[in-house]
Structures are given as structure tokens and as C-alpha cells.
């Protein structure tokens, strides 16, 4: 029973398309995150939600819009995809000051 699950695992799409990545956690954690791992392998925070409320919004283009329908779900919608959006996107959750539990990642390739 996967603790943090994200779908799809792989996503190949053309420039200009709109796509969504879904994330669900069954750990009862209050806080969820989206991280991006770029070509240089850095993991960088994009967004954080606590109990459906946006609390961290890093300098991410507004083509990226997170949505949290409830505290167990945090989805990421990306409009007008660009080549530079190609990366691995990780969802994670945590309980306040605890460590993260990560999903297995979504490899997005924009062609």
C-alpha cells in the first residue's frame, strides 16, 4: 500500500499542451509538497500546502498551478508546456517538522 503515490510515472507531451500530475498520500500528513529535479539533479521546492492552504510558492512560472482538494491530495497542473519543463517532479508529504515521504516521481518529457 503506497504511502505517497503519484500518477502518471512517465509523461511525454508536445510543447504547448496542458497536463496534470496527481498525488495522493495515505499517511495522514498535514503538509504536501511538489519538488522538481532538474537536469543538474537538484531537488528544488516548488509549492507546499498545509491542510489545503498554500504556504510556500517559490519562484515558479504561473503556468504551474497546484490544487489541493483535500489534505490527502495535491495535484499539479501545467499549462502551455515548454521544453524547459522537462524534469522529474516529486510529490512529498510530511507531518510538521518531520522528514518527508516522497512519491516515486513523474518523469515529464516535453518534445
Amino acid at each position, binding site marked *: 500500500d503506497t504511502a505517497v503515490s503519484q500518477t502518471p510515472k512517465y509523461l511525454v507531451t508536445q510543447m504547448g499542451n496542458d497536463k496534470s500530475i496527481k498525488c495522493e498520500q495515505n499517511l495522514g500528513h498535514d503538509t504536501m509538497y511538489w519538488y522538481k529535479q532538474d537536469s543538474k539533479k537538484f531537488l528544488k521546492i516548488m509549492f507546499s500546502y498545509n491542510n489545503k492552504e498554500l504556504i510556500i510558492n517559490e519562484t515558479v512560472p504561473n503556468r504551474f498551478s497546484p490544487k489541493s482538494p483535500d489534505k490527502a491530495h495535491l495535484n499539479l497542473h501545467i499549462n502551455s508546456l515548454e521544453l524547459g519543463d522537462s524534469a522529474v517532479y516529486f510529490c512529498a508529504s510530511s507531518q*510538521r517538522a518531520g*522528514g518527508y515521504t516522497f512519491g516515486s516521481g513523474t518523469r515529464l518529457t516535453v518534445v
Partner: protein
Amino acid sequence: DQQVKQNSPSLSVQEGRISILNCDYTNSMFDYFLWYKKYPAEGPTFLISISSIKDKNEDGRFTVFLNKSAKHLSLHIVPSQPGDSAVYFCAASALFYGYGNKLVFGAGTILRVKS
């Protein structure tokens, strides 16, 4: 602006020997440090952590050392096993608005343990 740095992109160690992975940070506000391990096509998994009030934390074969004055931490794996071969990420935490952690990650070090 890299606040967490792992200057060794890779490390190769013989099975049974010690692996030492290093990490430096620049932000003196960080007060909680973690190591994550990542296998290909999987998400990072939590390995061990240390609070800034400690200088050492041990969990089985894994020990993390923190030198606050030098803003340096290291992960020791003794003895190293082939299954330890993975990418190791150092992360530092800044509690954000009292809700959850904003973890800042290093670029990772690829550890290869040769049998």
C-alpha cells in the same frame, strides 16, 4: 545560490570499508539536517537526520556527524554493502511559518560499493 553543497559528485568504495559522504551548508538558520537515499526510478527515502543541538546521531551502520562551526555534516556508512549503492542527498531544513519543513537539497553524491 546553493545553500547546501555536496562537492563530490561520486564516490567508489570497496565492500566492507567505510563510506564517508560530505555536505556543507551556508545558511546558519538551518537547524535540522537529513540524509536521503535514492535508487533509480524511485523517490528519495529518508535515511537519518540530526538536529542542530546534537553533533552525532547513529542508526545501525549509519552515523551522521554535524560540525556547526564549520557548517559541515557527514554521513558515515560502516561497513559498506553493495546494496548501499545509490544517490545520497543531503538536505537542510528551515521550518516555514510553523507548518512543515522547507527542505533544501544538495545535488547528491553517487555512491558505488564494489564487491
